[in-house]
Structure formats: structure tokens, C-alpha cells
């Protein structure tokens, strides 16, 4: 039986939504050098469950964040009738499954195997429609959290107060406060105040959903402290204001430095990735070569009129570093590039160590990140000596030995510091 496909119905029978090029999908990871092809094969992928009442926006979130669907198109999504499992295994760090639940079905019913559903789950995202009456949603949230906690106490609970795009700022804050208050009161009433709920205001029409999802995903990355540390060292030594390590496909940032994230700079960086990918897709792809839009040569520099520079560099096949810095600091681009190379090498070491550990010891993930700190300096110190001399030709900085050795001591990677005087202006 086949219907005629009229114009209005192009999305109904077979979903092929989005302008997302096929070859830029989540393929098998064949990283350059780090080689963790299938590092997680022995390890169970963490699961992120998307739950909530019907029409709260679960499927829309999943489609917009992971399938590049345009937010307007989500109006035409059908209601989800079964659990949709989506494998996100694009980068070697971000490997997880998204399970999109139908809101109509109570999965705590004894006919469902709740151990199977909640047992191996890393995070539970509960979506509440902020534009609607949310009493029922709060009841369901309480029910879901308490039951899931019984099955799996290590589960992380995230509450997305969703569809806040139509709300005024005051109302947003008021709603968040109210939901926060009531949800925690409910938990305290049933004696479960040890459960921690994180709240996020989200909307698919801006970048808040990506930002919130980034936070969810980051909690599932055991190496997060190491990555954050590396980014801190990088920005302090290169006079960068803010740096994000992005998962290119989903535009989720898997790590950033310790300075607070403001939404605007995050949006800016997201948009930059879009620009790079779009331009690269349009002009960079040759039909005969199977080149991807994003490869090891990808880099981009955007100068804004307010004296800010956006700088993008490829880190691995799926990760990009996006930095925001003042134009004046960029005078020493060579130093920044050099520091970036060091940073990239360190990241690759994290990958390597991780895959090694998984193969050899299958040890706990916490041990991975601490082991990097110990093994790092030996491997990188030789390289730094050689390139010190190289740098002195191009960038006649007075690189005081003190400064260099200090950074050596602090970190596992050797970064070349941009002079303080050059930054302050």
C-alpha cells in the first residue's frame, strides 16, 4: 500500500528530516594516531534516558541536538510510540545511547523489565513543558525519580524545564525556582533528599538545549577533570579568554576551562562550527574523494569588529577546539599554534592511555585521568626542548626559564607562555 506523496506529507511516512549531509554522520571512529577504534567495545555505553509527559518535547530535543533537525520541523514530528534508541558514538569520548521514551506509557509497570531499562543507565533527563501546567509533570517526575533510584542509585537526574523560549525572563526564573522548590520538597517528604536533581532552562530555538545537554554529557565523561585542566593550562598560557572543546557533530561541548560559561560566547562558538562545516561542505568537498567536511586540516579564524577573534582548530576527527581571544593576543599566533599542538598531543595521550588501560587493565576510569598526570611529562619534555629553539627565531619573546619550567611542573604538557605584557593592553 502506498500513498501519494503530496507536498504536505513529505515528512509523514518516512522520516528523512534535516539538511544533515549523510557523509558527515556518525561513522566509525578511525582517529589519527590515538587509534581507539572501538575502545568501548568491552565497556557498556552509558545511556541517557529522555523521559517526561507526552508532548513535553523529548523527541524534539533528540532530533534537534543529535540529528540537526530544524526546530520548526519538530512541529511535525509524530508522537513517539516506542522507545527510540539512538547510538551516539561519534567521538571517542562521547559515546552513549539516547533512549527516547513515549510519554504515555508507564515503564515502571511490572510487565516491563525496569532493571533492564534503568540498570545500565547513566543519566535520566526528565523534560517538563514550562509553557503548560506542570503539576502532573511534577508528580510524574517524583514517581520516576524515586522508582529509578530504587533500581539504580548511581543514576544522575537532570530536569529540563523546556520550551522556555516563549517566556519572559522573570517568569522563567520564577518557574525554575518553583519547580526546583517543589520537586525537592517532594523528595524530602518521601525521605529521599540524598537524590540530587539538576535543573536546566532549555529551548530548542536557541542554544540552551545544547548547553544543557553538554552538561549532561560531561558528567558521563570520566576524563573531564583532566580535559578541563588541560584547557585551563592552554588558555592561561596563550592569553585566550575562553576555550571550548566541541563535539563537532552534535555541537555539544565536552569540556571547557574553569571560567564561567556565558551563553553568548557559547552561541558564538556553536555558530562558528556551523559556518565552518557549511562552507567546508559547499566548497571543500570533491565528489571524487570521499573527504569529510571536517578533517585534520580544518581550521578557521574569524575576526569580529569588536576586537574579538574566534579561532577554531581540529583536535581529533570529531573534536574541535574553539577559542575566543582578544585581537591583540593573536599577534603571537605562532605561540598559540604551538601551544595548541602541545594541547592536542596531550589530548591524544589521554585517548591513548584510555584505550591502553581498557585493553590491558580494564581499570577504573578515575585511574585513567590520574595516570595521565604521571606519565605526561616524560614524553613531552623532549619535544619541548627541540621546539624551544625553533620558537626563538620566529617569536623573539623573552621566554624566561622560570616561566617555562613552572609550566612544566604544573602540567603534563609544555606550553609556551605568551608574555603577560603582551596580553595586558
Amino acid at each position, binding site marked *: 500500500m502506498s500513498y501519494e506523496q503530496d507536498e504536505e506529507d513529505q*515528512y*509523514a511516512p518516512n522520516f528523512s528530516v534535516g539538511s544533515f549531509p549523510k557523509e558527515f554522520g556518525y561513522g566509525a571512529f578511525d582517529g589519527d594516531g590515538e587509534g581507539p577504534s572501538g575502545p568501548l567495545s568491552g565497556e557498556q555505553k552509558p545511556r541517557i534516558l529522555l523521559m517526561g509527559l507526552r508532548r513535553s518535547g523529548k523527541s524534539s530535543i533528540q532530533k534537534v541536538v543529535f540529528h540537526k533537525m530544524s526546530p520548526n520541523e519538530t512541529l511535525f514530528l509524530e*508522537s513517539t510510540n516506542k522507545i527510540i534508541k539512538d547510538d551516539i558514538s561519534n567521538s571517542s569520548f562521547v559515546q552513549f545511547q539516547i533512549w527516547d521514551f513515549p510519554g*504515555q506509557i508507564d515503564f515502571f509497570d511490572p*510487565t516491563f523489565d525496569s532493571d533492564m531499562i534503568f540498570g545500565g543507565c547513566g543519566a535520566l533527563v526528565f523534560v517538563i513543558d514550562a509553557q503548560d501546567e506542570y503539576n502532573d509533570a511534577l508528580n510524574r517526575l517524583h514517581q520516576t525519580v524515586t522508582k529509578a533510584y530504587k533500581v539504580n542509585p548511581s543514576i544522575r537526574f537532570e530536569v529540563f524545564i523546556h520550551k522556555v523560549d516563549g517566556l519572559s525572563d522573570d517568569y522563567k526564573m520564577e518557574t525554575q525556582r518553583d519547580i526546583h522548590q517543589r520537586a525537592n520538597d517532594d523528595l524530602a517528604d518521601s525521605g529521599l533528599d540524598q537524590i540530587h536533581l539538576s535543573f536546566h532552562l532549555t529551548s530548542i530555538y536557541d542554544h540552551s538545549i545544547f548547553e544543557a545537554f553538554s552538561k549532561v554529557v560531561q558528567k558521563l565523561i570520566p576524563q573531564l577533570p583532566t580535559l578541563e585542566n588541560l584547557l585551563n593550562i592552554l588558555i592561561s598560557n596563550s592569553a585566550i579568554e575562553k576555550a571550548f572543546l566541541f563535539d563537532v557533530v552534535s555541537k555539544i561541548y565536552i569540556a571547557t576551562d574553569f571560567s564561567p560559561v556565558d551563553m553568548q560566547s557559547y552561541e558564538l562558538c556553536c555558530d562558528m562550527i556551523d559556518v565552518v562545516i557549511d562552507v567546508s561542505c559547499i566548497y571543500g568537498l570533491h565528489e571524487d574523494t570521499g573527504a569529510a567536511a571536517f578533517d585534520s586540516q580544518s581550521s578557521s579564524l574569524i575576526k569580529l569588529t569588536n576586537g574579538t577573534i574566534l579561532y577554531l582548530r581540529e583536535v581529533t576527527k570529531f573534536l574541535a577546539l574553539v577559542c575566543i581571544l582578544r585581537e591583540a593576543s593573536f599577534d603571537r599566533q605562532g605561540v598559540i599554534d604551538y601551544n595548541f599542538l602541545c594541547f592536542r598531543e596531550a589530548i591524544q595521550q589521554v585517548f591513548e592511555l584510555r584505550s591502553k588501560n581498557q585493553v590491558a587493565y580494564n581499570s577504573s576510569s578515575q585511574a585513567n585521568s590520574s595516570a595521565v598526570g604521571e606519565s605526561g611529562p616524560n614524553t613531552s619534555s623532549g619535544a619541548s626542548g627541540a621546539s624551544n629553539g625553533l620558537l626563538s627565531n620566529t617569536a623573539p619573546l623573552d621566554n624566561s626559564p622560570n616561566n617555562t619550567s613552572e609550566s612544566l611542573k604544573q602540567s603534563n604538557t609544555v606550553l609556551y607562555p605568551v608574555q603577560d605584557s603582551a596580553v595586558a593592553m
Partner: protein
Amino acid sequence: MNAVVSLCHFCELHGPNVLLSTQPCRSQKHTTLKSSHAFYGPPESIEAPRYVLSPPCEACQAVSGNTFITSDHETQTSYVSSQVPWQSETEGLVRQACTRSLSCEVSPGKEGILVFSDDLGLGSSCGCSVLSHTFLIRDSLARGFHRWFSIIVLTKDRLLLLNLWPFLEKNISTFVAELQMSANKVYEAEQVERPQRAIRLNGAYCADKSSRPLSELTGSPKVFAQLHLWFVWLLRNASTRLRETLPSVDLAIPFGSLEECEDKFIFVSARKDANYLKTHPSADNESSVNCVVESTGPSVSSLSMLRTLLGAVNFASIVFCLLVGRQIVVRGQPASLVASILFTLKTLLPQGCVRLIPFSSQYRSPTECNMLGIDARAAVPQPSPQVARLEVLPPLDCETPESVNQLKEAHQFTFHLKWPGQLPIKWPTFLAKLDRAMHSEQLSNATLMLQIGALRMETLNAARALHYVDTNEKKDSCDPRDKTALLQALGVNLSDREVLTFWSKSCLSI
């Protein structure tokens, strides 16, 4: 067909839900009521349905309160359609199948037919199997512009369901196509009136009507009555489509010559052929010799009587000779006694193995017959292991044939078995079981005949299986270990081989 056919849908508010379930109800007692309003099922099945959804929803309550009934007077079956089956156990099964069909099972296409069952093994009787056809019905007001429906067929008999798959698939697809066609018409008309896509893009997303009944979607108010009729047709015709017959392998070996058959089912005979003989002496087409048997006179009427007359060991010997295909010659007077002995013994063998001459004046060779009755004065060869001879001797005090004819009772004669052969140490299963059964005091004559019929059938089946394997072996050499395993499975031991060889040779290689 013992199955429940249901229409399920995925409600925007309540999730998967059952809309209409049709099940057959058969009469327990044979009523002769022929009125057009006769209902054959139990009366509780048409009581008002208990099930009411807590927040009423138009889409979920399409038939609640209504019950459709169709009665088939020919088979005395009523088909009842209500929202959920009236038995609570069946209701639970249908609900679970509904959830699985719409929210759990994944078919390769979006819509499509599939079978799932509780994983309890193929032969299991407690699990139920479900054939489900999920499909989409277009709805201009629904999210995604369509709604999910499914038609499920739930039955306890998995093999039946799998066998009916092509029939069910073909017909359910027809129903679905018809529903979708009418829904498409409604959808297109609505789209012309109010193009939903444009309305939604303009931001006024309030038109969503979360529950519309199927009757509204297809534009036919009587859609559930229509579905009821379809489902009844499906259930009624599914049962006439598939009948149990013998497996095709048996077609190679005709039964007719072996046993009496009726409609391909074997008639296990427990009849005493001695009586048969008395009433239709000449109608027996297997006796070419025109024997005249008086209706009165001494006769052996049962095996147990024969056993008493001969003694247990002699009886066992003669049965053994009979089973493995050696010739039995009964010599003596009067003819009626001799023939009755042979006819009594004949019940032990399947028809095809019997080549019987009740009474003859001269000896016939074993190639002509394996059971022979001859006159006392006829010459017979010396007894050998291949020929067992039973002499029927009149009492010593009556020498003349006239005085012999005076004797009325069989026990007045003496019986003498002349057979130089030896019974094997391990008796064939047939013989051992027969001996045990006859040894027991408790079995009545009629029960014994049934036991003999069963033993005969058992041995014959083993012989048939063996014969089939043997004939196939010639065509393509199969592993001898397979054959050993087969014999083990059939419960055939070494001592049975001779019996089986004779049986399969004489009655199967016709």
C-alpha cells in the same frame, strides 16, 4: 479458530489501547435451538463490559458499551466483539499483546506484519503467540499527521498461527488497505479545507485534537461493525482453511492394504474375527478355498481361550511364529474348530500380513499362505523351524468322524504343537506385552482386544518408519548411526527386528 482478533491503537493520551476484540464462543451443550437470535456462548460473555477508562477519551471508547454478536448456526458458534475480551485472563493477554505490538516490537518497515510469542519453546502450550499488523491511519489533526493502529491475532497455538500466516497476512492487509483508503479521503478533504502545515508553521498550534475516534478518521460511522464482520469472517474461514491430515510422508505407503481406514484415519480393529467368520463365511475374499463352516460346533472364540487350551509356552511359541512370519499349519477336525483357531490368531497381525486359508484338503507352501488349516488326513511336511504345526486331536474314545462331530466343546480336544524351533531368550516387545496382558487376570476380553489393537498399531508404525528409512537409504545413503538413533527413539530392540522385517516386507512393499 480459537483466537482473539483485536484492533488496537496508540492513543495520544493513554498510550497503547485495545479498541475491539472479536472472539468465538462455542456452545458447551448441543442445543437444537434454531431461532435466528440464538446465541451459543456463555451468557456472561455478553454482559455489559466492566472496563471503563477513567478519563473518558473519544478515541479509546469507540465501542465501549456496545457488543456485536454474529452467530454461525452451522457450527453452533457465536462471535462476540466487545472492547476487551470478557474473560479477565484473556483481557490481560490481549492488553499485553497490544502494548507489545504497538510499543515494543520493531518490524523492518514502518508498518508491517510480524509474529511474536512468549518465548517458551515451540511445543509449549502455556504461552500465547500473536500475529500483529501495525499500520498508520492518516489524521490531519494528529502529531505527525498519522496515528498508529494494529490488528493482532492472539492464539495459544503457535504452529497453527504460523501455518495460517499467509492467509492472515493477505486478508488483514486487505482490511488495512481499505481503512487507509477511506482515511486518506477524509485526510485530503480536511487538508483542502484547512492546510494544517501552514497553520502549525504560523505558530497557532492549538488545532491539535488529541483524540479522534476511528469512525471520524475514516468517515464511516459504522466502521466498528464493519471491522467486527471482517474479524468474524477471518476467524470463521481460518478454521476451515487448515485441517489436520496425515503427514505427506505417509502417502508413499498406502494404508489401505494394511489396515482398515476410514477417512485416512486408521480404524484400530478390536473385533473378534471368529464371529465374523460365522456370520460371513463366504464373503471373506481372502479365502479362496470354499470352506463350509457350520455355525454350531466346537470353536475357539478368544485368544485367552486358546492360551488356556494350548498352555502358555505353546501359545507364546505359536504367536512368535506368527509374528515373525513363519507358517502356521493347524491340522485336524472339525473344520470349524481349525478355522476358528486361525481366525482368532489372525487378530494379532495386520491385515496385510495375513494370507490365510481356513481349511484346505491339501498342503499349501509358505509362499501361498502363512496360516493354513488342513484336513487331518492330508499329508504335511515334517515340522521345521519355518513351519509350526498344531495338531488338533480328538479324544481317544471317539474314532469315527461322526463321533468327532458330536463333540461340542473345544476343550474336549487335545492340542499338540510340533515346532522344533526355540523361542528367543528375549521375546519381541509385542509378544512380551501380549503375554503380560494375557497373564493378568484383570483384563476383560474386550480390553484385551483393545490392547492387541494398540500393540498391532505400535508395531506397524515402527515397521512403517523403518520401511521408509530403508527405502530412502537405497536412494541416498544415510548415516547408519541415524538409523540406530531412530530405532532407539521408536523403542525397537534387537528381538523386534525379525518381526518388523516380516511386517514391512509383507505389507509395505506391495
